[in-house]
């Protein structure tokens, strides 16, 4: 187990290296640079800026320079938020995004699994159709519609919750963003759980459990859900990585100081170091959560061997 985790983390290093390399050259292919503003800078100023940020050197030299810094844990300065380093931006923004994302993830898993089970046990009856209909709606309505709607209803009309902002992390400010982020995920998890549960409830070993007069709880949760949860677990891995690294739409609409915005802004601004930082953070999240998924699989299913 420990050996397996170590081996997986070691193989992550070449993966990360390839991602860093690919991203580094791809963003440089895009025309323009961080200092090409709408009103062009004076040639002299531009030259100075380029020299300070090593942009006057050949590309391969810049690449080696970046790799060298990265190896020491230095993500470099942001080209656009000039008073901050990339590391500082993440240090302040990432905890915010993780709080919202983790809340949404937990809500999605709990609500989605419960709704999925309820739906599966009432297959092809009104309750099932209702839940599946809502889930389909949840997937089809985009976040940028739900977010302003929730904000309008609960923030402006009813006045129960703040319509936006962060309020230094007060819990009331987190509810609407978490719900907004969770809704489409609840829909996906519901559908996955429902499908897997229906299949599990039809399997032979569930028939055995019922034939032996076990309690409904034992049949549904102990036996059926344990195998039905596997597809949810494999979906939840990448979904967790996506949720915890922030959402552009939710953070922008509710005005939350997370890191989700950086990905889009940095790419548009050609903020090379911030783009690289975002790519690396997301890559690490994905690698870690894929590992977690594999470990959970082995924990749930004894037939899965790590190795």
């Amino acid at each position, binding site marked *: 187990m420990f050996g397996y985790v170590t081996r997986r983390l070691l193989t992550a290093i070449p993966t990360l290296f390839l991602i860093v390399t690919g991203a580094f050259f791809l963003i440089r292919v895009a025309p323009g640079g961080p200092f090409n503003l709408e009103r062009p800078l004076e040639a002299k100023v531009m030259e100075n800026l380029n020299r300070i940020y090593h942009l006057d050197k050949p590309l391969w030299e810049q690449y080696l320079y970046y790799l060298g810094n990265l190896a020491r844990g230095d993500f470099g300065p942001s080209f656009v938020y000039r008073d901050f380093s990339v590391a500082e931006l993440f240090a302040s923004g990432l905890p915010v995004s993780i709080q919202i994302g983790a809340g949404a993830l937990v809500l999605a898993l709990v609500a989605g699994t419960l709704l999925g089970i309820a739906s599966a046990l009432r297959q092809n009856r009104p309750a099932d159709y209702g839940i599946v209909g809502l889930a389909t709606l949840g997937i089809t309505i985009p976040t940028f519609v739900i977010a302003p709607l929730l904000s309008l209803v609960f923030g402006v009309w009813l006045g129960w919750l703040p319509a936006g902002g962060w309020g230094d992390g007060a819990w009331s400010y987190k509810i609407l963003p978490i719900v907004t982020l969770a809704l489409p995920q609840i829909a996906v998890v519901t559908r996955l759980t429902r499908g897997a549960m229906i299949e599990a409830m039809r399997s032979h070993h569930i028939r055995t459990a019922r034939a*032996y*007069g076990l309690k409904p709880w034992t049949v549904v949760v102990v036996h059926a859900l344990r*195998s039905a949860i596997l597809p949810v677990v494999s979906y939840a891995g990448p979904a967790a990585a996506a949720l915890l690294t922030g959402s552009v739409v939710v953070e922008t609409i509710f005005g939350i100081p997370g890191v989700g915005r950086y990905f889009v802004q940095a790419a548009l601004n050609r903020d090379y170091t911030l783009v690289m930082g975002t790519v690396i953070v997301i890559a690490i999240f994905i690698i870690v959560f894929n590992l977690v998924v594999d470990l959970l699989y082995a924990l749930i299913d004894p037939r899965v061997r790590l190795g």
Partner: protein
Amino acid sequence: MAQAKTTEDSELVLDIRGLVVSFATNDGEVRAVRGIDLAVRKGETVAVVGESGSGKSQTMMAAMGLLADNGRATGEVLYRGRNLLALRPKALNAVRGAKITMIFQEPMTSLDPLYTIERQLSEPLVEHGGLSWKQASARALELLELVRIPDPADKLRAYPYELSGGQRQRVMIAMALANDPDVLIADEPTTALDVTTQAQILDLIADLQKRTGVAVVFITHDLGIVRRIADRVVVMKDGEVVETGATDALFAAPREAYTRMLLDAEPSGRKDPVPESRPIVVGVQKLGVSFRIQQGFLKPPTILKAVDDVSLTVREGQTLGIVGESGSGKSTLGRALLQLLPHSGRVQFEGRDISNADKAAMRSIRRQMQLVFQDPFGSLSPRMTVGQIVTEGLLVHEPSLSRRERDLRACAALEEVSLDPSVRNRYPHEFSGGQRQRIAIARTMVLKPRLVVLDEPTSALDRTIQKQIVDLLRDLQRDHGLTYLFISHDLAVVRALADTIIVMKGGRVVEAGPAEAVFAAPADPYTRELMAAALAPVAAG
């Protein structure tokens, strides 16, 4: 009505009266069981016999409250005076799994793969017996000893995937006996098992019945088993009981035509011998297939010899029966021979050496060598029409044929397997297992092959259908001078089809010779064991 082995005053433990089982389907209501009466007395063995679709399983599923969601049961299923069909779920759960228990046809999937044997054996003990988990696991060990599983203490900690099919069925039997039941319902418990394992499981059930006095309801389509273990037989057809009686009386003088047909369904007849002068179609010398099994990251792989040093010759028009239990290497041998697996040794087909020939070289030979699989449900693409399935091979081997010519060929091939050519526009799911196997055979016949490898083509079918397929295969062989390699664990079918047989065990040939000679006087102890297991119940009666 004759009820030889039961006395009149013996207690009824299960009394089914006027049971009707119906299913709501898109085509309206389908009645699977049409009002049957069936009584089980204390300690007796009742066999419920019938073909698939006769409603024999659904009768018992209804009694246990295990019907599918669209199923509905009316009538009465009385257990000690209480109607199980009218019980609330909680009251029903107190009976099923404790006093009425069940073992199923599918030992491979009937246990939860995610829990240990200990946990699953303990569950009903804790639920019904009121034991603590610790007491339950001690009792589970005793139960495993009772069903004679080797290394019971180790098996307790094992997961189902670590057990063989026979061992899993023993675990199911242990579970069934855990709470000292009155009735054990066994739904085709040996159908999915090898013949020797089958015999062991039957002996075990019979022995445990004697020791515990449990009544057994044995659902089966295999009359050999019925004759061996049942006191009384109930014959079902289309959801109704057509005949019932004491086993000996019913076997000696069946009253109904349907019963006579079932009794007559053992594959019969022998193949006409083929003169020695016919040319050799397949020659195999010292064939071997081995698999490397990687055990760990750095450990050296172990080599598993699936087929080891097998030599054989088959002449034109002959059938070679390849017999053995699962894992004996018989299917692997067939595949290696068709060059679907890399192998050592030499394979000659019509005088040409085709050992490890590459794909391009094999393509022209492939149409001469065809394969029919065991699973008639999985081996036909559900998204193609029967016509497309049958003619697919022609697209590869005779691309010059026009659509019209292909269609004619499909009609001819379907007629040859006794199917109406109009079925070619329908899809496989509309056909029964036997019909699908006919389609699979038509698919090979359309290419006019020389050699057909038949990999357990009748194992998934009812006895009566088996007999029809065996007759069909024999007719096709006679008409077209086909050469067959017939892979099977079913000795009755092999006997009806084969000129020569080889018996395989652990990848090696343990006995080979003309079919009649091997059946008359098996030389190898393993062959004798196989025959005793497979043919004894039939011979005994």
